[in-house]
């Protein structure tokens, strides 16, 4: 086991990779000089306000904008009938299609035209010269809806005879994943253990609401867009197709983004409506959503019911696993399609030796805000259910719960382990690692930090204190490809144009470190632009913990190519053999003779178009574009350990201690890895205890402010201990990195549930997350466990 920040043996400890370099993003953000979407304005801009359905389900009889059009300052008010093409305008397609399932009947129109299916669904847009006037006019839009029955329970919605939200019914998809002979496993089992666990509906809820500014060029018709993030190139291409434009006429600019976590930057109705209005009106149009809108419009996530059964042989050996999952996807299938339920099934066996597995999921549509991914999609949910199952099984089998896990974790000699199923279009091949060693290391770290002693002391003092343990498998580095450009200018400055996007995770710093490492520079000398579609037209975006892995590998390759080109040109200038040259400290010099150096700036000038150093036919410039391709994901893994106090009277749960142990392969910047894990754990604690999108029986959202949708504060989140290990570099990329974005949140529901179950001494599972006060009171008084 290596300490944080120290590379494992075999990993070269070169230059900038592994440094706790200061973040390049910090100075501007600390000064209030960040450029977030709402900070951009264009001369003569109009402000858009979206009018939304106040009813969960019903037939739309009329949307009358005539009064709104007469209101002060209003430039336009549009409904579905004003949109181009079919009623309701274009449907937003699925970005990530999987399992060959056709979801086209369930896609969301950009404005509802006949039926409304959730509170918050866009019905009209009002555009005015001032945001206050736009809101005033939006109040004047008259909406006539004949209410229909709201469909709120996914299991009920999937049964025959339930009110139908779509002509095709409420079950958008139903599929299975699995391998091995599950029937035989259960037939020969010494013991079968079953649990149920429901995960509550919650979501990313970044602190910055969504924003968009679309600025049309009156001459060329080109569009400048500010505020698209995450997958700007995909969104540009989709927008171009929907507007019938050439994609290069749309320039999505890089902006600072106030957190993403999966939800921000997907293509939403407003991503069509705002640019379309700007083009139609030939005026810049700006839109900034408010928090109440955000909580009912941006992708929800997580709500799933899980029924799990495991067959155990002698000694607690897992023989087989069955999972029956119902996924509540809300009113439509959005850009993520059905990848969350797919990932749930594909990742549910986790880091364990599961010889036979059968997972089945129903994706059900309900009268709620549609769903998408939220950090660790499918893994937060599935890990919580699986780890509750193992806790219950340990008790029933009379085996210590850590020991039961240790016996069933895959050993290093069993990796790579191919599971005969695929997710996100790639085979599931667990690449490498030592899962039992990390479980042992996490336990040792928790002991060193005094967790068990604290539990014992609390119990001795009469407290209901519990310890929770959860092991989990993550996935990251999803391809299929990423492109990076590295350009050195005549000042010697190094510019990286990456296809990742900055969502607050520090990717500018990480990519600068990778480029600096290759070029032998201080990262301060490298500037990074992410997510600008003109500077990097082939970017794949930032999602699925992919940026350090795939964008980083692309930058690594491009920086290496530029370094080689710099050496090649310098060799001509210095009249030396390239093999005798070294690139370091911003210059290329003859090895052993630093006085011979030419700087990168001089080399860039020498590579200029009129230079005598350039050979005939060679392109000018000191730059390189490289593409990195990956065929398989990499699988980081980890352990969470939690200590909680439960007050059976109030139902309150206080998290006292929390440890995240995570194998990241290699930490490019250990401080940022720790930050990812701490922040993720805080979000996970929120999902485990506090956060839930609630609805009343009519389908009215009850969580539309930060008073009702409870993001954890510093009072609910304890200091998070982290153990970052770098013992198992990923074999599939040149950096050995595994991605670190999601391991902090992945098993938080599992660990908190485990700790609460331990504190209360439950026989079954906790039944449901979040463990709200009312829920915990019920469990404490002997009810509700499953």
């Amino acid at each position, binding site marked *: 086991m290596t300490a944080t920040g120290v590379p494992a043996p075999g990993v070269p400890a070169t230059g900038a990779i592994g440094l706790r370099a200061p973040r390049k993003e910090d100075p501007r*953000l600390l000064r209030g000089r960040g450029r977030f979407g709402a900070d951009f304005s264009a001369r003569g801009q109009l402000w858009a306000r979206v009018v939304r359905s106040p009813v969960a389900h019903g037939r739309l009889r009329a949307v009358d904008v005539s009064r709104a059009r007469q209101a002060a300052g209003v430039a336009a008010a549009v409904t579905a009938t004003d949109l181009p093409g079919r009623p309701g305008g274009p449907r937003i397609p699925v970005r990530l299609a999987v399992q060959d399932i056709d979801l086209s009947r369930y896609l969301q129109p950009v404005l509802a035209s006949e039926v409304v299916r959730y509170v918050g669904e866009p019905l009209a847009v009002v555009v005015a010269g001032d945001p206050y006037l736009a809101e005033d006019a939006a109040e004047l839009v008259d909406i006539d809806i004949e209410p229909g029955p709201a469909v709120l329970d996914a299991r009920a919605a999937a049964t025959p005879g339930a009110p139908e939200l779509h002509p095709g019914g409420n079950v958008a998809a139903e599929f299975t994943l699995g391998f091995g002979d599950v029937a035989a496993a259960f037939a020969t089992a010494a013991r079968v253990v079953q649990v149920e666990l429901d995960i509550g509906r919650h979501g990313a809820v970044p*602190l910055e609401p969504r924003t968009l500014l679309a600025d049309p060029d009156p001459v060329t018709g080109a569009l400048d867009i500010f505020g698209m993030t995450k997958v700007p190139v995909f969104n540009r291409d989709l927008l171009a197709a929907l507007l019938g434009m050439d994609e290069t006429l749309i320039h999505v600019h890089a902006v600072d983004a*106030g*957190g993403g976590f999966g939800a921000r930057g997907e293509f939403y109705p407003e991503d069509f409506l705002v640019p379309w209005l700007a083009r139609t009106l030939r005026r810049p149009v700006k839109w900034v959503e408010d928090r109440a809108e955000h909580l009912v419009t941006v992708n929800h996530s997580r709500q799933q019911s899980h029924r799990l059964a495991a067959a155990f042989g002698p000694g607690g050996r897992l023989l087989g696993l069955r999972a029956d999952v119902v996924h509540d996807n809300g009113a439509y299938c959005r850009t993520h399609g059905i990848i969350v339920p797919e990932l749930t099934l594909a990742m549910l066996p986790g880091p364990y030796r599961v010889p036979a597995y059968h997972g089945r999921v129903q994706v059900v549509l309900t009268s709620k805000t549609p769903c998408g991914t939220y950090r660790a999609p499918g893994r937060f949910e599935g890990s919580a259910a699986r780890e509750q199952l193992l806790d219950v099984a340990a008790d029933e089998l009379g085996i210590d719960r850590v020991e039961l896990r240790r016996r069933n974790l895959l050993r290093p000699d069993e990796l790579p382990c191919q599971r005969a199923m695929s997710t996100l279009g790639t085979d599931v091949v667990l690449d490498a690692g030592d899962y039992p060693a990390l479980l042992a290391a996490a336990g040792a770290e928790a002991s060193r930090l005094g967790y068990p002693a604290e539990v014992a002391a609390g119990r001795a003092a009469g407290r209901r204190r519990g310890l929770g343990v959860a092991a989990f498998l993550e996935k990251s580095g999803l391809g299929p490809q990423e492109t990076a450009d590295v350009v050195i200018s005549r000042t010697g400055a190094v510019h990286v144009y990456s296809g990742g996007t900055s969502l607050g995770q520090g990717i500018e710093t990480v990519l600068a470190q990778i480029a600096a490492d290759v070029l032998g520079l201080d990262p301060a000398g490298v500037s990074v632009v992410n997510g600008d579609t003109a500077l990097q037209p082939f970017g794949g975006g930032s999602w699925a913990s992919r940026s350090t892995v795939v964008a980083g590998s692309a930058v690594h390759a491009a920086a290496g190519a530029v370094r080689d080109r710099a050496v090649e040109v310098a060799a001509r200038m210095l009249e030396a053999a390239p093999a005798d040259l070294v690139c370091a400290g911003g210059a290329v010099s003859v090895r052993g003779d630093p006085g011979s150096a030419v700087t990168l700036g001089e080399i860039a000038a020498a590579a200029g178009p009129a230079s005598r150093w350039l050979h005939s036919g060679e392109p000018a410039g000191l730059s390189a574009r490289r593409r990195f391709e990956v065929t398989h994901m990499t699988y980081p893994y980890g352990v969470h350990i939690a200590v909680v106090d439960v007050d059976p009277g109030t139902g309150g749960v206080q998290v006292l201690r929390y440890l995240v142990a995570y194998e990241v392969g290699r930490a490019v910047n250990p401080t940022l890895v720790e930050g990812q894990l701490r922040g993720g754990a805080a979000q996970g604690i929120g999902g485990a205890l506090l956060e839930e999108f609630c609805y009343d029986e009519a389908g009215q959202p009850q969580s539309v402010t*930060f*008073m009702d949708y409870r993001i954890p504060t510093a009072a609910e*989140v304890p200091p998070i201990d982290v153990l970052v290990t770098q013992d198992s570099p990923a074999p599939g990329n040149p950096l050995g990195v595994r991605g670190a974005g999601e391991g902090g949140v992945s098993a938080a529901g599992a660990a908190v549930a485990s700790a609460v179950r331990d504190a209360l001494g439950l026989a079954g599972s906790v039944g449901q997350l979040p463990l709200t006060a009312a829920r915990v009171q019920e469990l404490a008084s002997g009810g509700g466990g499953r």
Partner: protein
Amino acid sequence: MKDLHLIRLRVNGREHELAVESRRTLADMLRHDLGYTGTHLGCEHGICGACTVLVDSVPARACLMFGVQADGSEVATVEGLADGEDLSDLQQSFSDRHGLQCGFCTPGFLMLAEGYLAEDRPGAADAEPTEAEIRELVAANLCRCTGYQGIVEAVLATARARRKRDSP
């Protein structure tokens, strides 16, 4: 007909005179009329605290105040913290302790903490601020990225350093 009021205020020591509508929030006025876009709006209902500024040295939610209410006041925003190119001790401490990720909530936390640190609390000169005290302060605002640890550490370290600096 807009209901306009002529007001005068100082922002980060600079005098401004402008006509604002009575319903315009202080946050919108700072951001859109005066260009102080470092003040961010995260909820517009007073919970998240991203829009926290100092009004006459006291932390205030700029989304819950009207611009006209700041008439005659001294307002401090995040743009006024740094001394030229040098970050303030508090800003530097946030960077040193990884107290920010996306940075959207950061101006609010900085102004909240600055208000606390500058406050003349009874007994403040005698007692080291505790982590519990700072954590309670930090719990006033929301951050979705960091888990608060770096923020608590940054404010605590600055409080201790300033106390050490200021004690004879």
